[in-house]
């Protein structure tokens, strides 16, 4: 069976790549994709740990299920916000919507 740490490593990789996307992309939609990647990496971890450490305890899968829910909600609301921003400012570049300061 594939050792656990490999799953974890891949998950970590996906997470970091997603984080990079979130930190560096200009397009809000792309940022959202990065967030999805990060959430997904978390899910991989949850399931992997569930399988290798506590396969008889539902916690891992249950939490993964909740992460799905969160991801769905986050995507829906986030995209809605992006679209309404685009409608009002004709732009989804995050630098263009940094008025909320000082």
């Amino acid at each position: 069976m594939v050792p656990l740490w490999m799953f974890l490593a891949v998950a970590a990789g996906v997470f970091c790549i997603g984080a990079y996307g979130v930190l560096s992309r200009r397009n809000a939609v792309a940022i959202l994709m990065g967030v999805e990647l990060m959430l997904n990496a978390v899910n991989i971890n949850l399931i992997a740990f569930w399988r290798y450490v506590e396969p008889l305890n539902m916690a891992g899968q249950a939490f993964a299920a909740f992460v799905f829910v969160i991801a769905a909600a986050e995507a829906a609301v986030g995209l809605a916000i992006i679209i309404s921003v685009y409608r009002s400012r004709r732009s989804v570049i995050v630098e263009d919507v940094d008025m909320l300061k000082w």
Partner: protein
Amino acid sequence: MNVNDLVSNVNFLPWLIPVGPLLAFFVITLVTNRAKMVVATSSEYADHNHPGYMGLRVPVSSVSGRILSITVGLSGIIAAWLISLTVVGQALAVEHLGESEVFGSTIPWMVTGISTFNMGVLVDPLTTIMLIMVPLACTMIFIYAIGYMAADARQARFFALISLFAGAMLTLVVADNLLLLFVGWEVMGLCSYLLIGFWFEKESAYKAAIKAFTTTRVADVIMMLGIVYLYMMTGTLSFRDILHNEVMLSVLANTPAVLFGGLSAASLIGIFLIIGTIGKSAQFPLHVWLPDAMEGPTPVSAMIHAAAMVSAGVYAIIRMYPLFEAGGNPHHGLLTPPLMLMAVVGSFTALFAATIAVAQNDVKKVLAYSTISQLGFMMAALGIGAYIAAAFHLITHAFFKALLFMASGSVIHGMEHGDHHVQHAHGHGHDDAAHDAHAHDDHGHDDAHHAPHFDPQDMLNMGGLRKTMPVTFITFLIGGLSLAGFPLITAGFWSKDEILADAWKGLTEGFGPHALVFVLLAVSAFLTAFYTMRQIGLTFWGEARTEQAKHANLGQGIVSFTMTLPLVILAFFAIFAGFVGVPPTFPIFGSIFSPSENPFFEFVKNTLLSEQQPGELTFAWFPVLTSFTVALGGLGLGYLMYWRKPLQAGETDPMVKILGGLYPILKNKYYIDEVYVRVFVKPSQVFASVVVVRFMDGRIIDGILHGIARVFIWIGDFLKLLNMWLIDGVGDGIPEYVAAFGAYFRRFQTGRVQQYLLWVAIAAILIALVFAASSGWLVQASGG
């Protein structure tokens, strides 16, 4: 646990106590408070001494919604009251409650890694007495508020807020751990903010609200530090686990504190908590918010000053008392730093506030300062180990101070009524709005739309109210006497006397702090008696000094009834609450009220472990005589100055002549620093600290801008406190400091989330690195 044994089992009952008001809050907010937006006319928004806000679109709750809300709020608090009565009944039945058994139950609340954090309720003697006082006072205030707020368009909202307030206070009282207590504490902070700023259309009101909020916040942060530190040290915050655990206490007392070398951990935690209390129950130097808090409606003042908030501060101290005591023994003159701090701050505040109160003309301001001073009494008492005396005074004070506030409230109400009457009679300055105002409420006090603005709270405008408002007069008199500690028959006398007796005991054994406390408290007791008499004299005695005062009354019907009933009930307690704590060795009275033992004392002392309990005092004449002298002396002086020759209209207050140059200073609450300094602190210290401040002040702002070492930042925070000290809290030190700070950190706020995230990520990595380095994982990793 099903509902049935939840109700039947007294261990679960405490859970239900706060539920009523909290539920009421949600129900009112979500359901019954049906408000429609209308353009305000003075009648909808006629309110206590602040200009109306004609033209604004304001929410006005429908009549039905208003009545519903009142019902809900009232039933909530009454439910809480009944439940607590049940609990109290059962608690009193138990022999030596607290020593062996206490009521309460805990549930695991959050599992933090290895340790589980329990939430729970606890009923021990201290809680019991609080449960006697708080719900009763709250209920009275609620009833009172029905009448007092009857003309306010946002009455429903008001009831929601005070319900939340009461709920928070009850939570705090029944909490069995410091965190739950802190939760209640903070919710109350929020409520006080909302309620002080209830008439937010008034600039002064919302400013006062913000002031109160921020001031207490400063203290609360420090208190939270203490809580966190305590949790770090002990791994639990449950009172009984910590305070009924000799080992833990001694450990706390003997481990030196972090980065405050000299202190023990217990002392540091204690000081942190005390600072929290200083903020909450308005002790010097953080007392500044309390007088301004008078901007809120009077029931709120009563709530904050008597029933709930300020008591909460003292209650917290009493609750955690063994912690402060740990490592010392006040009964043998061994005062730990926190105790010392309390003794000094408390006694000083008592005197300080009393002197200010002497020169106030605003009927509520006087009471505000008297509150500060009375709380000073309690703090001082705690400082010298007079644990039970403090608790006793807390209770009695709550009763008579609530009484006084509500009485003054009805005085104000009456004055406004009179004022309205005057306006009406002279027939100028009232329009259609005013008409329908009178149509749908018998005495819409619309002081809004006529100039010059008449101040219904200024005692100089009153006088002779005893004729028009007899009930208020009698009750106010009772309350006042109780506050002044009129010998033998008032509650205030017994509690104060006990404090003085404790102090005297220490003094006879030659302990410095006790002596200080004794002298200062005696003087402030004298002043208290004096200004109380002055207030009563100015308000009720003599002849009416203004038209308004001549016609001041509470009118008829439900309003006047709801506003007088609580007064009468509380007046009863203001007298008789004292007799539960009569020391048995007291001549005559002792044999009457406590033949065998001092019931209050015997009951409450079991809150502590047996070896921490103070011993029964042997009766001594000197303190009793002292309290006689100061009380009667003060009252007498007041009588001479304000009763025998009542103030005539237009005549200036005799205080002005007597105090001379001091008068404006007192009137302005020592606003002038030099005088403040000369009167209070030893000049040398002051001089030194001034220099230090100047010097450090410059250094700090530089220090921060150039990011000098953190020690300077720490000194800076310390000096920030000193600053508030010197310039009476509102000094310019903090604003500048904060402004510079903000100006510096402002540039971090680019409005770009990604940058923030980047910072977060970097920080996380750094922390992880530190953690990894400390726990040697990296080493392992390189190894494996």
